[in-house]
C-alpha cells in the first residue's frame, strides 16, 4: 500500500491567444498589413503613426474574419459592440494607447472541443475581441550604447485576442486546445497561425490548488512561448515549480514569468499590475458596431464545412477510422485533396485505398522533402488514375509505388510512366507460364520441398517469378499456375 506523503494539486490553466488576421490592409488604415519582408517603417502612415487629428476607419474584412472564428467556436455575437482605448506608455505603440475592446467584445461565450487520450472535453471561450498589433522593438548595441530600434510596420495589423475559460487542467490539454484553435484559424483562411512568425502568440495563466480546494491558487502568467510544444513544456515546468514552492511552504505572488527557450525554464519578469492601470475608455474616434442578424446569417452561410463535422462525415460516409479521419481533416487542404482525389467514386473501398496512399506514401514523401501539400507536384486526380490502374489489375501494387515515386518527383501522368517503364502487370498466362517453367526448372530443391508438403516453399517460387518479371506479374495468376504445374 502506498501512502501519499505529498499534497496532491489540481491545476487550473487559462490561455490568452493573440491571432493576426490575414487581411491585405491594416485594421484602421490602408497601409499594407504584409510587414514580414518590408523595409523598416515603409508600411506606415499618419493613422498608424498616431499623428494628431487623424481618424481610424474599421477594416470590414477583419470584422468578418473575427465573426467567422466566433461562429466556428460556437460564440454568441452580441448585436452591439464597441472599441475602447487601452492606455499605456511604451514605444511599441505611438499613440500612447492601443485600440482594443474592453467590456463589449465581438464574440463571447463559446467553446472548443479537444480530445486528449481518447477523452473529449469542451474548453470554454470567454471572449474574442478585436484589436491592433503593436510595432516591433529591436534591442541592440550601437557603438557601445544600448538602444532600442522601433519599426512600426506591424503596428495596426489586425489582431484578435481569444481568451479561454480556466477549463484546461493539463499541459496536454493546453497543447490540444492550441492545436485545434490554430487548425480552425487556418481552416477558415483568416490567418496563417504560424507561431514562429508571431502570427499566433499565446500567454498562459496557470495556478495550482490542493485537490478539492474551493479557493483558487495564485495566478501566474507565462509569456514568450514561440511554439505549441514550448507552451506544453513551459506549463509542465511551471506546475512543477509551483508545487515545489508550495511544498516548501512558500507563498506565491501574482507575477509574470517568461519562458527561456534555451534554459527551458520560466524566469521571473515582474509582479502583476491590475487591469485598471490601463484606464480603458470608449474609443471616441470609432462609431460602435451594430451587427445585424442578416449580416451574421450571411457570414454563417459562407463558413466552410468545419473540421469536426467533416471528420465525422468521413467516418460515416467513407467508413474511415477516427484516426484516419482526424489526419485527413488536419487541414482543409488535406481534406480537399482527399475528396478531390476520390472524385465520384465514393465507395468505402476506394476511400480506404485513397486514404492509405495519402497518409502513407504522399505524407511520407512530403515529410522527407520538408514540403507542404500545396507544393506537391502530383495532383489529386492523378493519384486517382494511379489507383484506377491498380484496381483494374494493369499494374501491381508494388509497381504502383514505383510509379508514385516518379509522379511525386515529376507530376507526370501515371499511365505515361507505366508505359515508359514497361510496367503493365503480366496477366498473360502464356507469357507467365514460360517464366513459371523456367523458375521451376531452376529451383529443384524448393519444388521437391513443396511436393513433400512444405507449403512455404511455394512463396519462394512465387518470389522467383516476381523477381524474374521485376514485380509485374499478377500474383494470383502466378500462384494458380505454380499449383497446377506442381500438382
Amino acid at each position, binding site marked *: 500500500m502506498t501512502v501519499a506523503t505529498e499534497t496532491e494539486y489540481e491545476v487550473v490553466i487559462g490561455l490568452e491567444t493573440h491571432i493576426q488576421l490575414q487581411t491585405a490592409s491594416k485594421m484602421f488604415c490602408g497601409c*499594407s498589413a504584409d510587414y514580414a519582408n518590408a523595409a523598416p517603417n515603409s*508600411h506606415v502612415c499618419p493613422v498608424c503613426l498616431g499623428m494628431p487629428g487623424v481618424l481610424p476607419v474599421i477594416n470590414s474584412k477583419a470584422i468578418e474574419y473575427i465573426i467567422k472564428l466566433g461562429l466556428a467556436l460556437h460564440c454568441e455575437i452580441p448585436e452591439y459592440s464597441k472599441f475602447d482605448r487601452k492606455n499605456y506608455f511604451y514605444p511599441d505603440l505611438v499613440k500612447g494607447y492601443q485600440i482594443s475592446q474592453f467590456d463589449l467584445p465581438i464574440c463571447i461565450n463559446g467553446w472548443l472541443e479537444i480530445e486528449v487520450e481518447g477523452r473529449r472535453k469542451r474548453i470554454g471561450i470567454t471572449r474574442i475581441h478585436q484589436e491592433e498589433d503593436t510595432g516591433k522593438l529591436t534591442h541592440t548595441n550601437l557603438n557601445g550604447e544600448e538602444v532600442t530600434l522601433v519599426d512600426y510596420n506591424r503596428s495596426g495589423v489586425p489582431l484578435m485576442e481569444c481568451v479561454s475559460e480556466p477549463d484546461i487542467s493539463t499541459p496536454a490539454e493546453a497543447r490540444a486546445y492550441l492545436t485545434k484553435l490554430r487548425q480552425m484559424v487556418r481552416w477558415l483562411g483568416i490567418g496563417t497561425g504560424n507561431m514562429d512568425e508571431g502570427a499566433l502568440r499565446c500567454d498562459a495563466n496557470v495556478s495550482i490548488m490542493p485537490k478539492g480546494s474551493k479557493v483558487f491558487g495564485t495566478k501566474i502568467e507565462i509569456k514568450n512561448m514561440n511554439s505549441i510544444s514550448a507552451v506544453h513544456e513551459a506549463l509542465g515546468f511551471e506546475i512543477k515549480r509551483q508545487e515545489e514552492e508550495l511544498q516548501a511552504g512558500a507563498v506565491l505572488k501574482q507575477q509574470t514569468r517568461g519562458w527561456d527557450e534555451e534554459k527551458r525554464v520560466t524566469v521571473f519578469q515582474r509582479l502583476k499590475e491590475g487591469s485598471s492601470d490601463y484606464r480603458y475608455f470608449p474609443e471616441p474616434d470609432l462609431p460602435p458596431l451594430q451587427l445585424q442578424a442578416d449580416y451574421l446569417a450571411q457570414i454563417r452561410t459562407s463558413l466552410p464545412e468545419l473540421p469536426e463535422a467533416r471528420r465525422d462525415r468521413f467516418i460515416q460516409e467513407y467508413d474511415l477510422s477516427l484516426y484516419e479521419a482526424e489526419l485527413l481533416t488536419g487541414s482543409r487542404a488535406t481534406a480537399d485533396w482527399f475528396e478531390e482525389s476520390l472524385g465520384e467514386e465514393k465507395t468505402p473501398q476506394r476511400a480506404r485505398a485513397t486514404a492509405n496512399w495519402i497518409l502513407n506514401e504522399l505524407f511520407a514523401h512530403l515529410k522527407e522533402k520538408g514540403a507542404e501539400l500545396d507544393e506537391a507536384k502530383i495532383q489529386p486526380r492523378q493519384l486517382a488514375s494511379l489507383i484506377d490502374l491498380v484496381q483494374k489489375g494493369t499494374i501491381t501494387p508494388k509497381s504502383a509505388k514505383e510509379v508514385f515515386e516518379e509522379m511525386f518527383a515529376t507530376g507526370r501522368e501515371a499511365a505515361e510512366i507505366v508505359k515508359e517503364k514497361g510496367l503493365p502487370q503480366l496477366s498473360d498466362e502464356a507469357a507467365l507460364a514460360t517464366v513459371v517453367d523456367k523458375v521451376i526448372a531452376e529451383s529443384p530443391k524448393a519444388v521437391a520441398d513443396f511436393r513433400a508438403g512444405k507449403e512455404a516453399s511455394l512463396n519462394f517460387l512465387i518470389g522467383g517469378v516476381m523477381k524474374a518479371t521485376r514485380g509485374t506479374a499478377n500474383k494470383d495468376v502466378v500462384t494458380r499456375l505454380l499449383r497446377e504445374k506442381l500438382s
Partner: protein
Amino acid sequence: MKLDLKVVEDVAHLARLGLNEAEKEQMREELAPILDYFEMLNELDTSHIPPTAQVISVQNLMRPDEVRPSAPAQEVLANAPFREDNYFRVRPIFEK
C-alpha cells in the same frame, strides 16, 4: 478637502509626470475640486440609461480591405528626434 497624497502620486505615475513635493501638494489641492465636480454627476439616477459610448449617431462605418499607399519613409522619419537608418531610435527598453 485635500486628496490623499498616494492618489496624486499614482495619477502622476500613470501620466508619467515627475512632480516635486511642492507640486504634489499643489495637485492635492487643485485636483480635489475637479473630482468633486464630476462627483456631482453621480447624484443623477442613470440606472435606466444605457452607457453612452459615442455621441454621434453613426454605426458600422467600415472600409473595404484595400491597400493604399503608405507615407514616404523620409516624411515618416522627418520628425523623429533620433533615428538609425529607417528605424526610430529610443532609449533601451528591455521589458514591458
